[in-house]
């Protein structure tokens, strides 16, 4: 973006952009760069005690280089956690985004009744905090309390079913938001496109599949990326359900392992290293997804 007018060169002009940038730079440094830097610093250290480890001066911090990272990468529990989260994430992504797209398209059709009410009803669960939503569903899952169990004899908190039960909570809470994101984009599409399609003899279904979905692609990709990141960071649902069942371990998801290391085992250093590994993997996954779909979505020019 070079400016055509290059001849004017005043020192003030060079400084101005930086003045405007200062707030952003300061905020970025304070709330992003410094914490990340501190995390990396912590990840290279470890507490070392001597003897009984009691009393003053028995504990000091030493530099251990990449040892914490090596331990994090070599920990089978972390990778098992990733597998569990990938299975859970695939489930959530497909069902949640599928439903969100379906609802958005349905709400956007011309003949829908109670559009306003449905929109709010679908969106409302998103306003329920994750912990509350999980506890609410948890009560519905518990064998002796659940009204569902009186009709349907399934153990919702069993070893295999618990993943579906948690995915259900996430889908319930997340569909509304994604639906709204897609719906807003749909409303921004000029109506004359549909009119043209209708004149060509397209049915509502054909309009949805041939016109709306292609135009929605960028928004779908965006919601997918956010959903990928959110499911990788799954923490609330398993943590809140854990006291109710013995099928969720303290390291069920990678982030739960970070929490356990830091606050249950009191090892901030390993937790820092593991969280850096998690951040790297999330970055690779979301960038990888973007790379795969980029040309389809944003390469139209």
């Amino acid at each position, binding site marked *: 973006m070079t400016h055509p007018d290059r001849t004017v060169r005043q020192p003030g002009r060079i400084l101005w952009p930086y003045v405007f940038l200062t707030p952003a730079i300061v905020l970025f440094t304070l709330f992003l760069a410094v914490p990340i830097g501190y995390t990396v610093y912590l990840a290279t250290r*470890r*507490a*070392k*005690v*001597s*003897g*009984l*480890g*009691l*009393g*003053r*001066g*028995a*504990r000091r911090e030493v530099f251990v280089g990449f040892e914490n990272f090596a331990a994090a990468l070599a920990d089978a529990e972390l990778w098992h956690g990733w597998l569990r989260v990938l299975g859970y994430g695939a489930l959530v992504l497909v069902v949640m985004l599928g439903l969100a797209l379906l609802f958005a398209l349905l709400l956007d059709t011309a003949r829908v009744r109670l559009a306003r009410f449905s929109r709010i009803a679908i969106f409302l669960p998103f306003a329920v*905090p*994750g*912990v509350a939503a999980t506890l609410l569903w948890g*009560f519905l899952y*518990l*064998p*002796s*309390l659940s009204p569902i169990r009186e009709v349907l004899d399934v153990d919702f908190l069993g*070893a295999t079913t618990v993943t579906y039960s948690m995915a259900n909570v996430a889908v319930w809470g997340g569909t509304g*938001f994604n639906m709204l*994101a897609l719906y*807003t*984009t749909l409303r*921004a599409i*000029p109506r004359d496109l549909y009119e043209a399609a209708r004149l060509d003899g397209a049915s509502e279904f054909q309009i949805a599949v041939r016109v709306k979905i292609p135009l929605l692609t*960028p*928004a779908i990709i*965006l*919601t997918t990326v*956010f959903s990928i*990141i*959110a499911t990788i*960071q799954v923490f*609330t649902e398993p943590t809140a359900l854990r*006291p*109710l069942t*013995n*099928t*969720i*371990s*303290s*390291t069920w998801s990678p982030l739960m392992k970070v929490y*356990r290391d830091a*606050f*249950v*085992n*009191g*090892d*901030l250093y390993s937790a820092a290293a593991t969280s850096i590994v998690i951040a790297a993997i999330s970055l690779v996954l979301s960038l990888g997804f973007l790379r795969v779909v980029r040309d389809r979505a944003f390469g139209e020019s």
Partner: protein
Amino acid sequence: MRANRLGAALAVALTAALASCGSGEPTERPEAAQSPAASAQGPVTLTYWTWAPNMDKIVEVWNAANPDVRVTVSKQAGGDDAAAKFLTAAKAGNPPDLVQAEYQHLPSFIAADAVADLKAETAAIEKEFSAGLWGLVTLGTESVYGIPQDSGPMMLFYRKDLFDKHGLKVPATWQEYAEAARKLREKDPQAYLGTFSSKDPGAFTGLAQQAGAQWWSISGESWKVGIADEPTRRVAAYWDGLVKEGVIDDMPYFTPEWNKALNDGRLLTWPSAVWAPGVLAGNAPKAKGKWAVAPLPQWNAGESYSGFWGGSSTAVSAGTPHKAAAARFATWLNTDPAAIGLLVEEAAVYPAATKGQATLGQAPDYFSNQPDFWRQAAAVSAGARGFTFGPNVGVTYNAFKDGFDKALQNRTPFTDAVQGMQDATVADMRKSGFQLAS
């Protein structure tokens, strides 16, 4: 049109970023406990983290009598989370001045250098407590890291009405307990005599203590870890057998499910601690007056051992600028007869001070049908044995939860889970550099 779409996308991005920020943040935010800089004049203000109910009322009494040392109660959630929160606050440099420290967490606090040595301040009050309880705040060393507040000797709580109805005898040994469990299943297939909770390492610890376990001990300059020793394995194998046989349930304690079972009379016993009346009153109000208490079943007939589940001390933070004032308050709270009376009455604790235990008269309201409740408690307390807790109880307890969850789920032996606790504990201590006796 393009700009439009970009705008929409941006709006989506921003909203999502904000939303994810909001929900991604850890919900627990330790309220910074401010201990204002020490000033020569004016009253000293102390922050006190505790989860004992009505502690603010007890502190009011102190504040009225001691205008120079003002204590502010900051109510905590309690349990393992409270310990994690205190350790984190201490590490971050803004701990409270005083903290309620469960006996099992005190060594972790000491190892993190988060609590002060009160040896000089407590020299006069050592004899107010039994040697066993005093050992829990000294770890058998020369230092004193807290003042015992309450203790939780374990007893057997049982539904007297249902025991009578089914013709069950109060079990005196664990052998009899197992037989009663089988008999009950025959009489009432809906009910269980008890449940084994994989979420409550504290209860299991108490049962292991009763059997004579010494999970940690100090010899000279090194630690000895004996979690997978015979007593603990015996306890684990016993419950394993009952759960696998299907005569004891495996639902965790303190869940809505468990409350319902207690209320509906589908759980007939609860091996718990002296503080259980408070829990039962809150979680099973319908069964008031139907429960009774007996000593824990014994491993060998004729013995009278028990273990501890819970119990806590008042510790002074290593970071406080007002150590002397804090120690004065902690001493008053746990040894002054008036304060102990308030602790019993308002906070419903079983006091650690020996003379406090003797003054207890009227049984808890929930157990009004058992006038000798406190006499029973004192008898049990006399036979309760504990052990020195290690510096990484958090690791051990977490290994308990994960290990026993897995054992229940995969039907693997409980003794494997005990071995897992031992291995995790030793590995963590090795990694940190603690000296271990092999």
